[in-house]
């Protein structure tokens, strides 16, 4: 497919990182393995490796973001790259031409990599199909489409916590994604990642107004009843409910959403005793998640942020081709 062609070179190596959909399982595991090797860097006294020294990375954020942008920035700096942060207000680039114009301007400055966040689905694909040869594009979230590094850090967190996909095997986890799947790029990337890596059961849970049409075609079981959807879950991923969704025809109020779908200690009891709770952040306490759960001992929300740096270091260095290897990556071997 087209996206696969954009994302990998002729030898199956990562080129651009735009979406999880279409990436082979072995490549996802390679990234997770690489992230594992970077996970210790942040604990060292000198928190830097010289893998991307001399490279310039532009963080191109057409949409406001704090944690994604900062973790990308930290990841780039720990790889010794030079970082350029550009927060471009969506209002001045509502036209597509100016998006590409911005890109051309940056290209003239000889950036080696663009980390792109944009409010419209497909923006990262568009940019990747227009950049010069050798320039890499990492999708940091495009509209409602995908947020692939978030999905990988979710996988990384789950692997560390549960031992899933250890030794590159499958898993029998029951994972429930709860909330506003309709507008969530995290949900779409997570669904593709979990289905590619292999899980026991993947569920989406939410009211009909917040689940996209034909969502089951992505390979999920659909639950409208949260009690049933959370039953015996190993992993619960709560999605952020943005304020604007609480007006209009999608939901009547934040309070009703919390009482109906919010993750409370009582509801958490439906899941397995060993359940882990995750959230892409920023969280809305008392809307989609109770503080007692968000801060409780099942929650891995802060670990997700921490692992995000290692995962982004892995993705950036692999896309740049700067990860040294003594032997070919597993995804290129026959085993």
């Amino acid at each position: 497919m087209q996206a696969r062609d954009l994302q990998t070179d002729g030898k199956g190596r990562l080129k651009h990182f735009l979406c999880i959909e279409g990436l082979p399982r072995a490549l996802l595991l390679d990234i997770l393995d690489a992230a594992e090797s970077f996970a210790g860097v942040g604990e060292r006294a000198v928190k830097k490796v010289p893998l991307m020294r001399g490279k310039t990375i532009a963080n191109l954020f057409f949409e406001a973001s704090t944690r994604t942008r900062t973790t990308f920035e930290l990841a780039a700096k720990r790889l010794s790259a030079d970082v350029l942060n550009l927060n471009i207000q969506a209002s001045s680039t509502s036209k597509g031409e100016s998006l590409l114009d911005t890109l051309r301007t940056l290209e003239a400055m000889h950036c080696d990599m663009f980390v792109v966040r944009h409010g419209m689905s497909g923006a990262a694909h568009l940019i990747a199909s227009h950049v010069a040869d050798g320039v890499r594009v990492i999708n940091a979230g495009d509209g409602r489409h995908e947020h692939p590094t978030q999905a990988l850090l979710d996988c990384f967190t789950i692997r560390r916590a549960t031992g899933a996909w250890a030794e590159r095997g499958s898993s029998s986890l029951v994972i429930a994604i709860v909330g506003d799947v309709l507008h969530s790029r995290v949900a779409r990337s997570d669904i593709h990642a979990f289905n590619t890596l292999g899980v026991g059961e993947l569920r989406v849970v939410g009211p009909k107004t917040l689940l996209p049409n034909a969502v089951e075609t992505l390979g999920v079981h659909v639950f409208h009843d949260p009690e049933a959807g959370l039953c015996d879950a190993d992993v619960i991923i709560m999605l952020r409910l943005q304020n604007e969704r609480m007006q209009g025809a999608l939901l009547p109020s934040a309070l009703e959403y919390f009482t109906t779908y919010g993750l409370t200690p009582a509801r958490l009891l439906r899941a397995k005793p060993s359940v882990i709770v995750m959230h892409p952040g920023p969280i809305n306490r008392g809307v989609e998640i109770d503080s007692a759960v968000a801060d409780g001992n099942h929650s891995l929300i802060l670990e997700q942020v921490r692992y995000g740096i290692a995962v982004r270091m892995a993705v950036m260095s692999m896309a740049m081709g700067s990860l040294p290897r003594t032997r070919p990556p597993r995804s290129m071997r026959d085993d």
Partner: protein
Amino acid sequence: MRWHIRGGRVVDPARGLDRVTDLYLAAGRVLSVDAPPPGFGDGQVREIDARGLLVCPGFVDLCARLREPGSEHKATILSETRAAARAGITTLCCPPDTLPVIDTPAVAELVHRRAEESGHAKVVCLGALTAGLAGRQLAEMFHLKAIGCVGVSNAMSAIADTEVLRRALEYAATAGLTVFLHAEDPWLGRGCLHEGPVATRLGLPGIPETAETVALSRDLLLIEQTGVRAHFCRLSSARAVALVRAAQDAGLPITADVAAHQLHLTDIDVGYYDSLCHVRPPLRSLRDREGLREGVRAGVIGAICSDHQPHERDVKTAPFEATEPGISALETLLPLTLALVGDAVLTLPEAIAALSLRPARILGIEAGSLAPGTPADVCVFDPNVDRRLTEETLASAGKNTPFLGWHLRGKVTHTFVSGRLVFEDAAPIR
């Protein structure tokens, strides 16, 4: 100039004619078929060897945006009528959503005059149903009819206020004008791709089938109430075809058309955000495409049109939902319709009828026939030539078509408008 088109397969759906014979044109009109009238050989006669070629009425395209006035950076009446001539299209129907809108006789007159100056194809206009297409005040329909508008339409601007719509239909019925309706609910139709698995996967806001069927159902009831003659433009879903069919079976005198690309593409062709497949109404599911094909086969959908919308490259170079919808489609109208013959949806005479006779009848114009005495709008084409579509082969100013790279069968060799040769393939491939 007199013309003798010799030895072609002459297809005239209006008279059920389909045989290898000769066609004679003179003084801008069809003179006779089979044998020349007495005295035809006196004076200058040009002969065209049409052996192995098809000779049929020139095509009538129910919807072509010519971009003039108002968007001449996209295309002009001159550039697009020239492209039409190359495509065998002799009459283009221009919807009223120009800038300014065709809601006054002056704008219609401008379009008519520019078309006459270009001389490559005839252009007829639909007048606006409401002033400025704003859906509030009725347009001056009697004045628009007097200047030559062949019908009225609110184009892609839905009239949300049902009282205004009802009165507009009543007034159009009074004026004896056919109303051309786009069935699209303004609220349900706010997305950019058919609501289904593809839109869900790509994270694009969907347009549900009900955007079409809710509006269509409402319109059908108002048509029945007001007694207006109505035509539904660009059907996109199988359900809509079923609704139109049921209304026709119940005796409501309505007609419908479909854009040729809707009979070939589905939402899956959008792939990873191919903006060339961004159209409105959207490409829908395979089931819908089959429903539309069945509608064409059964005659529920009488006409196939291009829904030509030439664009400059910039407006297609953006994230999918920020791009402008539409395909530059004049030059694929014939090949895409002929492909339906290959797919056993239509016979060749039926395909030609869907491009000429039926749209001419919908517009109520004297076209779409080769009967002696009718204007000599004639297309001669080679149905067997297979060509790869490239930007270079497109005459339209708009190169925005998802069919680039496709091998398309059917090549126009000659086009006549009122007996004038407006296009001749310099080197017909034989």
